[in-house]
């Protein structure tokens, strides 16, 4: 065995290795092929009359369509808020040592995940035909207050109930997974300090669960954007309903479907950017230093280009 001790005070910088980097010819071929295919696709799309780009451009920004976009957005936001809040409650109930709470939550999740959203929307919208009246009183006995259900549930409420309550069932499983992913030692340390179960859940476990909960929740939100199209069964008008009616009226069904899709794509892209920044917020504390954002990386590249 032979090892040489470095001489003291050696400050001269050793010569940097100048080697030819590994070549990746396959990558360049792939990029070329992809580029050609994309060019061909773009050409066909823009020259094929069936897509009716002129017609789409004329109608994509009409007031009813824009109103539909706005409705889709706030339906998504409100039903996700309902879904997340109720989902947290359900998840905590599922994990509770109290068997009444955990079974009730299980039954809720079973029913609302097990039936189609469309059916749930129709039931909420038509509560009046199922039950003419709802009354408060002694069960199986005298009734004190009576409500006429036909006016109790306006369409917008039915839409939000249908979407929100259904989403809560799915969200509760995502949140339960997030809670389970937090290290057991965290709960033990909190308990050893004397924190109650609720305090531990609210201040220690849930904030750490967010890191695992945010990506699938982003997924659910993006999915909800499109699920809102089902509220046309209530009936309640949003983006899909609006574009569909223009399409049916003008016999241009396919182009209007593409218009709707492009709108959904635009909204999804904005949500994806938001999700990225939300994930970074919750990653703080889990990694030593956060990697640079695409904007930060671009800035670094530009300043390096300036320096050269």
């Amino acid at each position, binding site marked *: 065995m032979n090892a040489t001790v470095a001489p003291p005070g050696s400050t001269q910088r050793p010569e940097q290795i100048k080697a030819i980097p590994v070549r990746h010819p396959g990558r360049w071929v792939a990029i070329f092929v992809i580029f050609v295919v994309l060019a061909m696709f773009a050409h066909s799309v823009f020259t094929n009359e069936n897509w009716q780009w002129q017609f789409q451009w004329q109608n994509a920004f009409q007031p009813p369509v824009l109103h539909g976009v706005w409705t889709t957005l706030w339906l998504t936001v409100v039903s996700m808020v309902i879904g997340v809040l109720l989902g947290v409650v359900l998840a905590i109930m599922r994990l509770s040592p109290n068997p009444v709470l955990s079974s009730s939550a299980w039954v809720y999740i079973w029913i609302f995940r097990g039936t189609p959203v469309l059916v749930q929307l129709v039931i909420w919208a038509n509560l009046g035909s199922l039950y003419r009246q709802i009354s408060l009183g002694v069960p199986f006995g005298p009734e004190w207050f009576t409500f006429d259900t036909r006016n109790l549930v306006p369409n917008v409420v039915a839409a939000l109930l249908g979407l929100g309550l259904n989403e809560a069932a799915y969200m509760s499983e995502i949140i339960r997974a997030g809670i389970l992913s937090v290290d057991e030692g965290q709960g*033990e340390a909190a*308990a*050893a300090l004397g924190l109650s179960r609720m305090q531990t859940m609210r201040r220690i476990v849930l904030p750490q669960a967010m890191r695992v909960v945010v990506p699938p929740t982003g997924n659910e939100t993006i999915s909800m954007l499109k699920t809102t199209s089902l509220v046309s069964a209530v009936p309640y008008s949003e983006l899909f309903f609006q574009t569909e009616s223009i399409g049916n009226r003008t016999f241009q069904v396919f182009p209007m479907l593409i218009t709707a899709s492009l709108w959904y794509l635009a909204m999804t892209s904005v949500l994806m950017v938001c999700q990225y920044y939300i994930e970074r917020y919750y990653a703080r*504390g889990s990694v030593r230093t956060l990697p640079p954002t695409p904007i930060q990386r671009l800035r670094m590249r530009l300043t390096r280009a300036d320096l050269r």
Partner: protein
Amino acid sequence: MVKAEQVHKWFGRDEVLKGIDLEVGRREVMCIVGPSGSGKSTFLRCVNHLEKFDSGRLSVDGELVGYRQRGDKLYEMRESEVARQRRDIGMVFQRFNLFPHKTALENVMEAPLQVKRQPKAEVRERAQALLDRVGLGGRGDAYPTQLSGGQQQRVAIARALCMEPKLMLFDEPTSALDPELVGEVLDVMRRLAESGMTMIVVTHEMGFAREVGDSLVFIDEGVVVEAGPPREVLANPQHKRTQAFLSKVL
């Protein structure tokens, strides 16, 4: 301060604690040693009811842990009552268990703010003083991932002390640390012992036990095999099992 009488614990069909008898006096530092799987950590966790013991009696400062005695009958304590008992008992874990989403100072402040509802300014001052005491006064704004293992464990000790406990439990506090970081944590523990805190330390650090401990307890296979002043037990182990264990460790 702590009294254990014939404490038994089963995990399913496995009997882990087979009748632990020991007593820790006020201001005493008891070091518990033993091979892994002997039940020493399990016993420690029974003291603050993180584990429920199945038979026997365990009391801290005269109060039964986890159960209320009324006449002849034992009543299980509610969660809130157990939480109240735990306020006076601090625990330091092998893997630190600091809250990663909070800074060091916030970690230390968390329990007094939430559990004792003390005013924020007062807690902040006390927390900063504790961080100074463990040698991390300037690192209050750092997150746990930005601290070394030894630093994290010292923050964990400060966090437990901020609740002003009358008893401190240490579950192998230096076992997960690099050798060169062990010293700084043992230093803090020694100074804590000198200040008069009652401590139960499960450890493999025989040097610490000899210098700082008032009593050394050797637990093997769920029972106390030998107990006594550390220097005596380490120099002159009476039982064969103690001798066998110490010959491997020392």
